[in-house]
C-alpha cells in the first residue's frame, strides 16, 4: 500500500491543476506542501503528540481528492442540525458546498464559502490580509493549507450584530472508500461585531473518514465570538481540528467543545491575546468509551496586560478509552495583571481507561493571578448509593452523577437549544431516557 504522505504529495499537482495558479493562495499552498514534505505527519516523539498516535489513522488507503457527487436531502441531515432555531447554514457534502441545504448571505456581511472568496477579486484584499496568517506551519496544518480550497468564509464587518447563529456542517457519505478531507475555514469579525457559530463534522457511512480541519479566526476590537463544536461523529471517523484565534483589544472569544463520538479526536486550539482587556473562555465536555481517543491540546498566549482567560475541561472515560488534556498557558513578560484560570477534572469509569493530563503554566510576568487544578477520580460510591436508595436504578444514577459532574460547563452556553441538544446527546451516550433539564 502506498504511503499516505507520498500519496498526498503526488496528489498535490492534480489538486493544483484545478485551481488558479496566479493567485496569492497558490504561493501559500506551494510553500505549505514543501513544508509538509519536509515535516510530515506528527509522531509520538514530538512532546505535544506524546499521548496521541496517528499510526492507525495513517495506515489506511484514503481517497484524498474525493470526487463524490452524492446528493443529500434535508430529511437525511435534519437530525444533525439544531433545527429549532433560525440560523444560517453552510453545509458541505463530501467536501463540496451544498447550496440547496445551505442558507448563506452577502447582505451586509459575508457568510459563504472559501472557494468563492479565494477566486473572486473583491475578496482579494481580505484573503491577502488574513489567509494563513495565524495558522501554524507545523506538518498537519501545512498539509491542510496545501490542500485548502473549500470551507466556510465568514466576514462580519464593523458594528454588526449577527442575530442568527451560523451552523457549519461537513457531511461525508463515502460509500465507496475511505475518505480524507481538508476543510479550511476563515472567519473575520471586525470591530464591535458579534457572531455565534456551531460546527459539526458528520459521517453518514461506515467507512473510515479522516478529517484534518483548519480554522482561522480573527476577533477585532470589541468583537464577541461564541464558538461551539459538537464532536459526536461515528466511531469510524477521526478528526484533527486545528483552530487558531487572534484576539484584539476588548474582544471576547469563547469556545465550547463537546466530544462524545469519533474514533480519534485531536483538538489543537491555539489562542493569542494580542492587546489589552481581552476575555477568553474555553471549555469542554468529553464523554467517551470503547477504544475512543480524545485529545485536547490547548494554548492560550497572554501577550498584553489586563486580560483574562478561563479554561474548564471535564472528561469521563469508560472502557479502554483514552483522554489527553494538554493545557498550556503562557503569560508573557508584558502581560501584567493577567487573570488566568485553568481547571481539568476527569473521571475514570473503568480500570482500562486512561487520562493523560498535563497542565502547563508558563508565567514570565510578576503581577498576575493564575491558577490551575487538575483531578482524576472515580464516581463517588456513596453518592451512587444515595441516588439508588431513592429508587433511581444504577445506570440512571450513574448517568445523573456524570451529568452533574459535567454540566457546569453548559452554564456559559448562550444558546439554550445547544444545551438541550447536548444534554440529549449525553443521555443517549449514557443509554438512559431520563431528562436532565428542568
Amino acid at each position, binding site marked *: 500500500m502506498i504511503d499516505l504522505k507520498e500519496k498526498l504529495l503526488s496528489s498535490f499537482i492534480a489538486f493544483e491543476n484545478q485551481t488558479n495558479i496566479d493567485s496569492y493562495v497558490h504561493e501559500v499552498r506551494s510553500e505549505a506542501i514543501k513544508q509538509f514534505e519536509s515535516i510530515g505527519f506528527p509522531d509520538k516523539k514530538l512532546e505535544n503528540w506524546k499521548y496521541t498516535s496517528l499510526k492507525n489513522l495513517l495506515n489506511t488507503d484514503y481517497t484524498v481528492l474525493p470526487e463524490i457527487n452524492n446528493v443529500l436531502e434535508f430529511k437525511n441531515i435534519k437530525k444533525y442540525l439544531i433545527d429549532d432555531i433560525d440560523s444560517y447554514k453552510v453545509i458541505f457534502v463530501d467536501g463540496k458546498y451544498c447550496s440547496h441545504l445551505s442558507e448563506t448571505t452577502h447582505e451586509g456581511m459575508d457568510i459563504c464559502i472559501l472557494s468563492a472568496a479565494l477566486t473572486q477579486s473583491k475578496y482579494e484584499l481580505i484573503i491577502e490580509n488574513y489567509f494563513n496568517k495565524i495558522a501554524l506551519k507545523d506538518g498537519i496544518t501545512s498539509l491542510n493549507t496545501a490542500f485548502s480550497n473549500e470551507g466556510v468564509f465568514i466576514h462580519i464587518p464593523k458594528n454588526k450584530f449577527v442575530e442568527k447563529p451560523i451552523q457549519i456542517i461537513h457531511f461525508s457519505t463515502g460509500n465507496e472508500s475511505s475518505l480524507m478531507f481538508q476543510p479550511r475555514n476563515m472567519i473575520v469579525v471586525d470591530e464591535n461585531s458579534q457572531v455565534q457559530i456551531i460546527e459539526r463534522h458528520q459521517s453518514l457511512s461506515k467507512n473510515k473518514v479522516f478529517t484534518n480541519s483548519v480554522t482561522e479566526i480573527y476577533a477585532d476590537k470589541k468583537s464577541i465570538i461564541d464558538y461551539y463544536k459538537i464532536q459526536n461523529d461515528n466511531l469510524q471517523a477521526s478528526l484533527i481540528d486545528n483552530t487558531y484565534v487572534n484576539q484584539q483589544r476588548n474582544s471576547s472569544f469563547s469556545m465550547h467543545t463537546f466530544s462524545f463520538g469519533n474514533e480519534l479526536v485531536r483538538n489543537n486550539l491555539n489562542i493569542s491575546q494580542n492587546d489589552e482587556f481581552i476575555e477568553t473562555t474555553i471549555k469542554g465536555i468529553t464523554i467517551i468509551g470503547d477504544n475512543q481517543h480524545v485529545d485536547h491540546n490547548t494554548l492560550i498566549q497572554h501577550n498584553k496586560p489586563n486580560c483574562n482567560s478561563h479554561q474548564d475541561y471535564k472528561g469521563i472515560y469508560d472502557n479502554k478509552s483514552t483522554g489527553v488534556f494538554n493545557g498550556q498557558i503562557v503569560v508573557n513578560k508584558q502581560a501584567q495583571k493577567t487573570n488566568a484560570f485553568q481547571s481539568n477534572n476527569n473521571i475514570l469509569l473503568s480500570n482500562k481507561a486512561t487520562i493523560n493530563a498535563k497542565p502547563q503554566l508558563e508565567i514570565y510576568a510578576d503581577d498576575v493571578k493564575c491558577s490551575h487544578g487538575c483531578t482524576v477520580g472515580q464516581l463517588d460510591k456513596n453518592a451512587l448509593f444515595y441516588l439508588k436508595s431513592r429508587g433511581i436504578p444504577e445506570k440512571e*444514577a450513574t448517568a445523573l452523577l456524570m451529568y452533574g459532574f459535567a454540566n457546569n460547563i453548559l452554564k456559559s452556553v448562550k444558546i439554550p437549544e445547544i444545551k438541550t441538544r447536548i444534554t440529549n446527546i449525553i443521555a443517549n451516550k449514557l443509554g438512559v431516557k431520563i*431528562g436532565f433539564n428542568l
Partner: protein
Amino acid sequence: MLKINNLHAQIEDKKILNGINLNIKAGEVHAIMGPNGSGKSTLASVIAGKEDYEITKGEMLFNDDSIDELSAEERAHKGIFMSFQYPIEIPGVTITNFIKTAINETRKARGEKDMPAGQMLKLLREKCSMLGIDRKFLSRSINDGFSGGEKKRNEIFQMAMLEPTLSILDETDSGLDIDALKIVASGVNKLKKKDNAVVIITHYQRLLDYIIPDYVHILFDGKIVKSGKKDLAVELEKRGYDWIKEEINN
C-alpha cells in the same frame, strides 16, 4: 411490614450486627437507641441495601418477601426509605431533577406511567409549603452548600415526595437546632398514616419529645438488648447508657 430475624451483618471482616430481631407493623413508630458504635447506622444501611455490608446470617422480610438480595433501588421501589445521617452533596444535579427522576423511576418499576408534569409541580409546591421550604430550594444542587438543618429538611422533603411505607430516620436530629428539629418532627408527624411505619434511629431522646414512639429498642453491640415503651427513652436520657452495659454484663 418489616420483620427482621436473627440478622448478622459485617463489613469486610468486622462483625457489626450480631442477631437483630425486630418486628415493625404498619402504623407504628419504633425508636432504636444506643451508644456510639452499637450498630444503629449499620442496621439502617443494611435495611436500605448498602452493598458494603454482607449479611452472614438471618433474614429481612418486607411484607413477607425477603429483601436480602434486592438492590437499594429495588427496596426503594417497594417503599423503603432511609433518611441519611450524613446526606451526600451532589453538585450539578438539582433537587427537582433528582426527585422527578426518583419518582418516575419508582413508578416505572411499579408498572405505572410517568407522573404528569403538572401534577409533579403541584406535589412539589405542596410538600415545600408543608415543610416550610422556600421553592428556590428546588433549583439548588442536592445538598450542595446546605447547612446541617437544610440537609435534614431536604431528607424529609424527599420522604414527603416519595411517600414510602417504611421510613428509617438515621440520626435525623443530629446537627439540628431546636427550631429545625420542630419543623422536621412536625413534617414526619404529618406524613404518618395508618399504613406506613417509621423507625427513628437516635442517640438522644429529644426528637422523641416531638415524634412519640410506640416502642423503644436499645441496641448494644449489634443486638437489641432491651425493648420497651416511650418511658425507656426517658430513663436512658436520665441515666445514660452505662446502666444498660452493667445490666448486660451481670
